[in-house]
């Protein structure tokens, strides 16, 4: 089931647990140089990986509730598409990538105004239909040619991660289809057309009751780190910093955890 952070609660958390460690709950240190909580104005544009859609939308609503004069807009897409857009000059204040590779594209172009930080992680999970018709129990089942199995194509991040775990586990996978993205793989699980698919834990979390997630130890060999940074092209750096702080706050981390992500291990 999809879990959302209650907005009022999270908003209170934001004001009491700001990253700058201010003692005064009314001082919105999250707003950076802005002296007054709720004083952020203008428009904040966040480019974020598609897997962050639900969490970031909630966090954006929260930020807008605290700052009535602020408008937060999102561009959710594949990280590589976003990186391309940013290097082509798209006007963004914040970039949150689903992997280090695409963040590197942006930092290599010198477009980050701060050092990127890893704010969350995602690990692979085995997604099976709710009734688990293939009796899948672990990663080893992916070597079973009799099962109908989906993994991501090696060209996309979840497929690259899948290759890593199979390699680490010494398993030769026997997939029936190499999906173009996580969503497509998950759809086939939801429809009951495959016995299992290898997707991210956050995807299993978002899929609802029709999909069951099975954790497996080899997932630790391909932990996906999500870096975030503010950008030199930012037109609203104060709000950008406030958003980063919110994401890294306890409330933000809780929201991510509820959505199937986990806090950075390092």
């Amino acid at each position, binding site marked *: 089931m999809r879990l959302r952070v209650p907005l009022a609660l999270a908003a209170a958390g934001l004001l009491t647990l700001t990253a700058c460690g201010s003692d005064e709950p009314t001082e919105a240190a999250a707003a950076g140089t802005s002296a007054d909580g709720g004083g952020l104005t203008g428009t904040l544009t966040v480019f974020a990986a598609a897997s962050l859609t639900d969490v970031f939308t909630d966090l954006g609503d929260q930020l807008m509730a605290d700052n009535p004069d602020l408008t937060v807009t999102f561009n959710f897409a*594949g990280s*590589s598409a976003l990186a391309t857009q940013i290097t082509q000059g798209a006007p963004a204040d914040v970039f949150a990538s689903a992997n280090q590779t695409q963040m590197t594209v942006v930092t290599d172009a010198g477009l980050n105004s701060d050092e990127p930080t890893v704010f969350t992680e995602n690990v692979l999970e085995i997604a099976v239909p709710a009734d688990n018709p293939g009796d899948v129990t672990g990663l080893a089942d992916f070597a079973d040619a009799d099962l*109908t199995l*989906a993994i991501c*194509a*090696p*060209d*996309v991040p979840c497929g690259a991660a899948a290759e890593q775990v199979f390699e680490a586990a010494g398993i030769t996978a026997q*997939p*029936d*289809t*190499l*999906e*173009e993205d996580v969503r*497509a793989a998950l*759809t*086939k699980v939801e*429809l*009951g*057309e495959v016995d299992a698919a290898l997707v991210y834990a956050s995807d299993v979390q978002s899929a609802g009751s029709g999909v069951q997630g099975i954790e497996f130890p080899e997932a630790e060999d391909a932990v996906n780190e999500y870096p975030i940074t503010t950008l030199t092209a930012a037109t609203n750096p104060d709000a950008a910093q406030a958003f980063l702080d919110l994401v890294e706050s306890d409330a933000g981390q809780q929201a991510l955890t509820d959505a199937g992500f986990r806090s950075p291990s390092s």
Partner: protein
Amino acid sequence: MLPLLGLLIRAPWSDLWPQLTEPQVGQALRLSLVSATLATLVSLVLGVPIAWVLARSTIPGRSVLRALVTVPLVLPPVVGGVALFLVLGRQGIIGRVLHEQFDVTIPFTTTAVVIAETFVAMPFLVISVEGALRAADARFEDAAATLGADRWTTFRRVTLPLVAPGVAAGAVLCWARALGEFGATITFAGNFPGTTQTMPLAVYLALQSNPEGAIVLSLVLLFVSLATLLLLRDRWLGRSGSPVT
């Protein structure tokens, strides 16, 4: 035209050859050509009679049939793929029976590719043939009847030859659409090299990791389809004005 020009300009001409000779390219291209051709044949077998019913018969519910046949034109192909799952998937209405009674599963097979391509591409054939049938003079069919030809003979020996240019044009459109089919195919048939990975799927995935490779693949698809269409045009369409020998 400009996007095509863009492809040509951005093509990595220097390492074109190594890219082209990768086994996956040939595999995907062969699968694309075979499945698009099979889908066109299936569309001909199913679509021409449907077009005839739409153009000539007076059965009730004809407009409903036409609407149903043309739905794939407006449906996003991905939705079409899901719809195919719901019917032919192993949990689908028909697919469940096939799976449980005959141990036949259609998704993730080349058959599924052909079915998905047929589903999306057949409307082009049906519409084109129906138009040709409507434009053709139905009195030729009357003349054939007075010469002792029953409906089937009339259809085979008079109607079909009369609308041959329309059928050919429809088949070419259908083939081209099937060749470029992506959404329904990747949804219903999945993506596996050699079985279900057609060129458009290969292009799309290459785009994720290797944009130059994607351009090369696109060019291959572009040239092969252009060559085929030109060849067919010379054989069929270019002569539609003069008698067929």
